[in-house]
Each structure stands twice: as C-alpha cells, then as structure tokens.
C-alpha cells in the first residue's frame, strides 16, 4: 500500500467510523430492536416492553392506514419530486440561461430563498397564504372561504414541496447544462437539428448522470420529508399522512414506540431499494 501505511491509515479513519457507529449504526440497531417489542410511551408496556417478534410488522402490513400512507407517499414523491421539482428545476435552468442578467439574478434569488428559509418560517408563510379567512391566495383568486388544506390536502403538500425544493434541481441542472460545450450545441444546429432533437441527441446523453443523481437525491429527501406535517398535520382523515407523518403520529402522538420503529425500518428498506435501483441505472451509463 502506497502512502500512509495501514496503521496510520486506520488511525485516520477510526474517528469517523466511531462517529458513524455512535450516531448511525447504533440508532439503526436500536430501532431494529424496538421493532420487535411492544413498547409504548406510557402504561405497563413502557416499564416492561413485551417481546412480540414480527407482530408489529404483520400489524403494519395489514393496517389499511399503512397502505394508504404508502400510496400517499408514492404519489407525493412522484408528483412533487420526480415530476415537479425535476421538471420545473430543469425548465428554469434551461430558460434562465438565455435570460438577461437581472432577470436571471432575480429568479435565481427568489427560488433560492424558498430553499434556504427555515421550514417553520416557510410553513408560517404558507399558512398565511392558504388561510381560509383572509388568506392571500383566496384574496388573489377571489375565492373567499376556500379551505385549501382541507379540500385538497395532497395537492397542497405537493405544490408546497415543489415550491420548496425546486431550487436544488435548478442549481444542479444549471451546472449540468454549463458542462455541455457550446460548440456541441452549435455543431448540431449547423447540421440543421432543431432544439428538441439537439436536446435528445446532444444534451440528454451528457446530463443523464446528473438527472439520475438528482432524481435519487430528491426522491429520498421527499420520501423522508416531515414538513408536510407542519402544514396539514397529516389530515384531514389521513389524506396527507405520508410515511414519516404516519410514523410520528403512531409513535409520538399514539405512544406506540415499538410499532413506529417497525415502520421506520420498513421505510429504511424502501429507501434502500430506491437507492439501489438508481445506482444500477447510473452504473449502466454509457454502456
């Protein structure tokens, strides 16, 4: 081995490994352990948790509320991240390249602002926007009394998440498009290729890796995003209860820590499957 030598190399890596063990591996194992217990926040099961084996898992998988939550999460991720943030982010990045300086600065600034503001601030602003009585949106659309969060809870959190997260995709795609040399686009243009063709033949193959990486990241982030809870609380009637919200309501509000842990673990597995799927696609690049 070149350079440090094994001994010193290990020494350098140990602190990082210790931190990972303490803050990632241990909680994961602890969750795994909790998942097989009937362990509540209060009552007799809090003092002496009962071993129930896979009981929590079978309970979850047969619970219609869990199935509803999975479907909602898929819809939420698919609509707001994979389609919404991805598409809008790319569109913004592509159009802003041709915009004049100050327009680009302004739009960039606004989009970034929605991304860097703290979640609580943002939710507060959105509540002011969507409020049934005197909300800005109702004033703008002239629809007094419309209860957006109650009548369209899923649409609300989808639009909210697109608004909130598009900046990341926009930045990533801006960088990706910058990496496509102008001479390549111009070569295609000179031979008579239109914008769509050029996009398909020249741009897309070059930014394929960026698209996959971006989609992977925003999928995972959106999947585990808890902010919708602050906007709709998962309601009404569980109609915006994505998996993280479901876990929170079950374990913290409902006090069933063991059950919550089991669902967390299922979420972890789903995350892993998603990540592996994208990584496989990525590895096939250029093949």
């Amino acid at each position: 081995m070149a350079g440090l030598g094994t001994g010193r190399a290990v020494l350098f890596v140990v602190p990082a490994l210790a931190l990972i063990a303490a803050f990632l591996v241990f909680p994961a194992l602890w969750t795994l352990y909790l998942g097989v217990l009937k362990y509540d926040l209060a009552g007799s099961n809090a003092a002496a948790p009962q071993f129930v084996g896979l009981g929590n898992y079978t309970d979850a998988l047969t619970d219609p509320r869990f199935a509803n939550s999975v479907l909602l999460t898929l819809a939420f991720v698919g609509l707001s991240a994979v389609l919404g943030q991805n598409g809008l982010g790319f569109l913004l990045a592509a159009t802003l390249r041709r915009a004049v300086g100050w327009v680009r600065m302004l739009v960039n600034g606004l989009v970034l602002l929605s991304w860097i503001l703290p979640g609580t601030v943002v939710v507060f602003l959105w509540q002011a926007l969507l409020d049934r009585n005197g909300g800005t949106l109702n004033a703008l659309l002239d629809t007094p009394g419309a209860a957006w969060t109650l009548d369209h809870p899923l649409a609300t959190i989808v639009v909210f998440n697109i608004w909130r997260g598009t900046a990341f995709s926009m930045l990533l795609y801006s960088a990706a498009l910058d990496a496509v040399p102008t001479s390549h686009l111009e070569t295609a243009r000179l031979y008579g290729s239109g914008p769509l063709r050029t996009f398909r033949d020249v741009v897309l193959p070059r930014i394929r890796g960026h698209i996959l990486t971006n989609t992977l990241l925003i999928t995972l982030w959106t999947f585990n995003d808890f902010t919708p809870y602050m906007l709709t609380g998962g309601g009404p009637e569980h109609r915006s209860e994505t998996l993280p919200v479901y876990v929170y309501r079950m374990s913290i509000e409902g006090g069933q820590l063991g059950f919550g842990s089991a669902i967390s673990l299922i979420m972890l597995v789903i995350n892993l499957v998603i990540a592996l799927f994208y990584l496989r696609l990525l590895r096939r690049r250029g093949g």
Partner: protein
Amino acid sequence: MATIELAALEKTYPGGVRAVDGLSLTIGDGEFFALLGPSGCGKTTLLRTIAGLEEATGGSLSIGEREVTRLAPGQRDVAMVFQDYALFPHMTVLDNIAYPLRIKRVARAARHEKARQTGDGLELAELMARRPAELSGGQQQRVALARAVVAHPSAFLFDEPLSNLDARLRLSARTFLKRLQRELGVTTIFVTHDQAEALAMADRIAVMEAGRIRQVGTPREVFGRPANTFVANFIGSTPMNLLPATVTDHRLLLAAGSLPAPSGLGARREVTVGIRPEYLDFSATAVPDALSGTVGIVEHLGTSSLVTLETDGGPIGVVVPEEAEPAAGSTGWAVPRPGRVLLYDNETGDLLPT
C-alpha cells in the same frame, strides 16, 4: 460548392464591440481562403457570422448566389469544424461521422455506409467503433473533418482546426487538409493566427486587424509585397526590417548607409524602408548600395541563420546560409536583392507604389 460574398458585413456585439467592421469580400468557388490576424481581431466572429451562429448587425452575405444573411445556421448548407472538434463523447466514431445524415433522416444502413466510406478516405477505418475519448488529437481532428465532409456542404468553415495538435502533427495535418480540400473542391474558409500555416495552405489570405481587412492576396503577394506596415510586421517567420529613411535625388538615406531610390518619389521625403531578412544578402567586405553594421546575435534557423547587424539606425536582420555565418563582432554589409526594397508612407503606413 459555391462562391461566398460579403457586402459591408458588420457584427457589433451587444456590449458595443465592433468585431467585424464592414467587410466586403468575394471568395471564389472552390477556393481555400485563410483569415489571418492577431488575437481578438475578429476572425472567429467573422466565421461564426458566415455560419449564422452570430447574427450580422449590418450588410449582407450570400453563399452560392443565395442570400443567407437572415437564414438560420441549419439552412445555410455550411459545415464548421471547431477548435475543440466538438465530437459527441457518447457516440462512436461511426455515429459521430454519420450524425449530419441522421439529422437529414437518412436510413441507418445508408448513413453508416456513407460514413464508412468517408472515414476510409480519412484513414479512420480501424477506429469506427471507438469513442472520441479513445482517440489521439490528430485522429479526433480527422473525425471532425469526416463529419464535415459527410454533410456535403457548399462550404467548409474551419476555426483553427490545427491549433490543438503538436508541432509535428500540425505539419502533416496541413498537407492532409490541403489535399482533402483540393480533392473535394469545396470552398473553404480557414481561420488561423499562425501566418506560416496560412502561407502554406491558402490560395488567398485576408489579413485582418481590429475587424477590418488590411490586405487580401495570394501568399506570394502578402509575403513579398505587404500592403502596409501592419501586414509587413505580421507576416513572415522573421520580422521584416522596417527602417526610417529620407528620399533625396535618386538615393534613400538610412542611418546604416544609402540605397538607390526608385524613381518617381519626389525629393526630401521621409519614408519607411521595408526589407525582409530573407531578401538581404550578407557580405563580409564593403560593397556599394549596402547597409553596414556590427554582427551581433546569430540565431540558427536550421539550414540558415538569422544574423542581427547592429547599426546606427537600429538592428537589421539578415538571413545567411549556414556555411557563410559571420563571426560575432565583425563588420558586415547587407545588400538588398533587386526589386525587394519596399517603401511605406510614414503617415498612413501604406505601401508606396514603386
């Protein structure tokens, strides 16, 4: 195949830079035309304006009888080779070459057949399945050429296509490119800032400065009779000697000696004398009608040497054959060959008719 005609063509960038300043020029059918000039003089801009990648802000442009000033690049029927070659990294050499045909919706088998033929002609037969990243610079350059050739355009536009090659490869690529152009007979505009390249390859050269053309002519004309001191300075691997002189009756008086003056100049006039080092002969003994000085630095150019004579009027370069190399510190005389002394107006810098 087509003639290219520029009429008062103008390109001003939004920032106000006038990169092409009212150029009028006709490039003949099948001609190999070089645009030469120092960095920033507007060569690339002119080429891109002809291609349609930049919109002309004035004047007009026609390619083969067709007015194209307002046409989109794809409709002008020109092929351009960029300095970075612009090969698509995700396509094989074959697909890269076939790309223009793919846009024209030629069937797959037919376009691959055509691309193979073209590739064979450019010594690319073995490389068809590779990606651009797996090619040397010279091979990449030939792929870019093949892609331009396969499109069968009315004109080729080359923006410094040889500048990414090492010195040796550049020489062979020059020959190669010139032969290819001769065989295809396609009108070609070639941008370069390397005067040797332009002299070696072009049928005609336009020397540009700050968006304007300072001289158009054959390599022989541009080298032998530069139309002004700018061109005189720019062309030639060894810079031209430009020396102040006074015209009296039938003599040119220089600080380093006097030369016979051409007739019809009038008397008592200040001019600049221009003589290429290649057109001066060296003499170790005193001769009439020569410029004298002390031998300073001697630079070896291969089969000849560039001798710098230190004179009262500044240094004078003389090219001498290697066997006649003088010793440093000795006195020497530089004799201009007949008809090679050029006179430039001091005010305008233009060549005076002699």
